[in-house]
């Protein structure tokens, strides 16, 4: 991990409200699943750095030409990403990375199932490219299977997707109608694989919870990339905690993750927390511990 002023090579729209950021990368090469944090403004609002997963990395051209570059795909959601979208190539961003634990590579012979939901596609794409390169070099496992979920055809990003990617849309306007989770669940051949398959995923909390449950059922090992609000990004503040599945406290998304094994985290609790609001006009839900079950009780 290093902190440096990263020159912006590109910052281009790839879908409505999605952009791809490409930075000249001066630190160690990132691995799929790792992330960087950016300070998007020298002013104090927004204040905190923002984390983004790497979606790719190109080493420097040994011929001495192009510098190493790292990329991320991001969604314009709030203040920081709106500011980020305005910064033109040629400017510099205060970057720290690579941070966090990467996806563990599949063991020899393991079939990799990769699922990305929405803007969670970045790290999954990065991993897919890495695995395909390893496969092509004869060092890897069977060809990875890549499933990407989107709302609809209109929200598909203009990105180079690896050949053979399976697109899923909620409304069926492109590819499979339904989520990557549904598609994986429906595939009998995959169910057969059991522990010879390994699932990799990044996406909304509900998707991760669904996939964690499915993986458990199928006997697949699962490496899932989680999100949590971060302050330090390096493991110092305990702010980015996620509830452990065993009820024994918390793990840090930034330093213990962001990639966790399927059984490590209480994904269901996280999904419940991030759940969409009940319509307010309806009778208020009975009061309950804010984090739902288990972890809410850890207060001391």
């Amino acid at each position: 991990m290093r902190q440096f002023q990263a020159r912006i090579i590109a910052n281009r729209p790839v879908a409505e409200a999605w952009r791809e950021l490409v930075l000249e990368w001066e630190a160690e090469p990132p691995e799929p699943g790792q992330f960087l944090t950016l300070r998007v403004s020298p002013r104090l609002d927004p204040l905190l750095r923002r984390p983004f997963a790497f979606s790719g990395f190109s080493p420097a051209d040994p011929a001495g030409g192009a510098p190493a570059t790292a990329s991320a795909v991001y969604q314009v959601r709030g203040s920081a990403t709106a500011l980020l979208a305005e910064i033109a190539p040629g400017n510099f961003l205060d970057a720290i990375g690579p941070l966090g634990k990467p996806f563990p590579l599949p063991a020899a012979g393991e079939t990799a199932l990769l699922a990305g939901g929405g803007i969670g596609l970045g790290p999954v794409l990065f991993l897919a490219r890495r695995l395909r390169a390893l496969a092509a070099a004869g060092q890897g496992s069977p060809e990875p299977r890549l499933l990407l979920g989107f709302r609809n055809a209109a929200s598909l990003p203009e990105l180079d997707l690896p050949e053979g990617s399976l697109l899923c849309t909620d409304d069926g306007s492109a590819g499979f109608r339904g989520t990557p989770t549904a598609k994986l669940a429906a595939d009998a051949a995959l169910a057969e694989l059991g522990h010879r398959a390994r699932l990799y995923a990044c996406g909304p909390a509900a998707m991760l919870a669904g996939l964690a449950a499915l993986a458990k059922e199928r006997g697949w090992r699962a490496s899932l990339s989680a999100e949590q609000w971060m302050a330090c990004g390096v493991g110092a503040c305990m702010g980015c905690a996620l509830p452990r599945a065993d009820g024994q406290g918390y793990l840090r998304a930034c330093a213990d993750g962001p990639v966790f094994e399927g059984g490590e985290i209480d994904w269901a609790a996280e999904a419940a927390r991030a759940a969409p609001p009940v319509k307010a006009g309806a009778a208020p839900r009975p009061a309950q511990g804010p984090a739902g079950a288990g972890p809410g009780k850890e207060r001391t």
Partner: protein
Amino acid sequence: MSCDLRVRIGPLELANPVGVASGTFGYGAEYEELVDLDALGAIYTKAVTKAPRPGNAVPRIVETPAGMLNSIGLANPGLEAFVDRKLPELRKLRAAVFVNVAGSSEDEYLEVVERIEAAAGPWAQPGSGAARSGVDGYEINVSCPNVRHGGLAFGTDPAQVERLTAAIRARTARALVVKLTPNVADVSPIARAAETGGADAVSLINTLVGMVIDVRRRRPALAMGTGGLSGPAVRPVGVACVHKAARAVKIPVIGLGGITCADDALQYLLAGASAVQVGTGTFVDPRTAAEVLAGVQAWMEAQGVARVEDIRGMLLA
């Protein structure tokens, strides 16, 4: 001109006035790839409590305008794990180390200090060449807004602060700092209570009680409801509190709250602080403490100020 940056806190001499605040810097190692730990004036550890604490339910942090709320809940591995696993690491640091201590009863505070005193062994001045004990002082957290019992309650009652300080004073010759809360009508009586109890310094401010509501989900953004507000947003409150405390006590005051640059730190020093801590500022930019120190030094040189400890007397009325 070369400035004298040393600051005296009781028996302890800090190499420079810029430390990093408790809870924002782990135990030092977390930031070692990004920050030159040896260049820091002091490291204030994450709070140590008697029992391990998993911390509060999540989410624990949320951003606010020019600030953030946290309700970490003093997550820490507990006294025994601290002694076993963290203390040996802290011995490797050159910077002065303050162990931040919290508890939900007077006994818990005392137990933590007694155990650490026993484990750390004799103290020697940092830089004296003698072996490092891993602990140069204690920062007694009587002001955490994120725990149900103890914490804030202690910190708002002068009698309790004095008694607790005196009890800890009786158990250690190391530098003893009491960390005060801004969540009171007037910090002066609490600062004086710490002084009377035998503290070598007071540090302030801890966080302000704050709340953010996630309107979409109709719930507090933090699982615990309220949290502690820190960052630039609270800096004016911190400077006012330090200004007041510095006029209430004779012991040194350590100022913090929202420092992100040298100008901020100089505000605290001019307000009467002898030293400062950078907390949330490190999250925003890990170089903050180093840049603050360089900037303070540059200001001293430009202004012809020889000793950093003189700055606190330089505010014109």
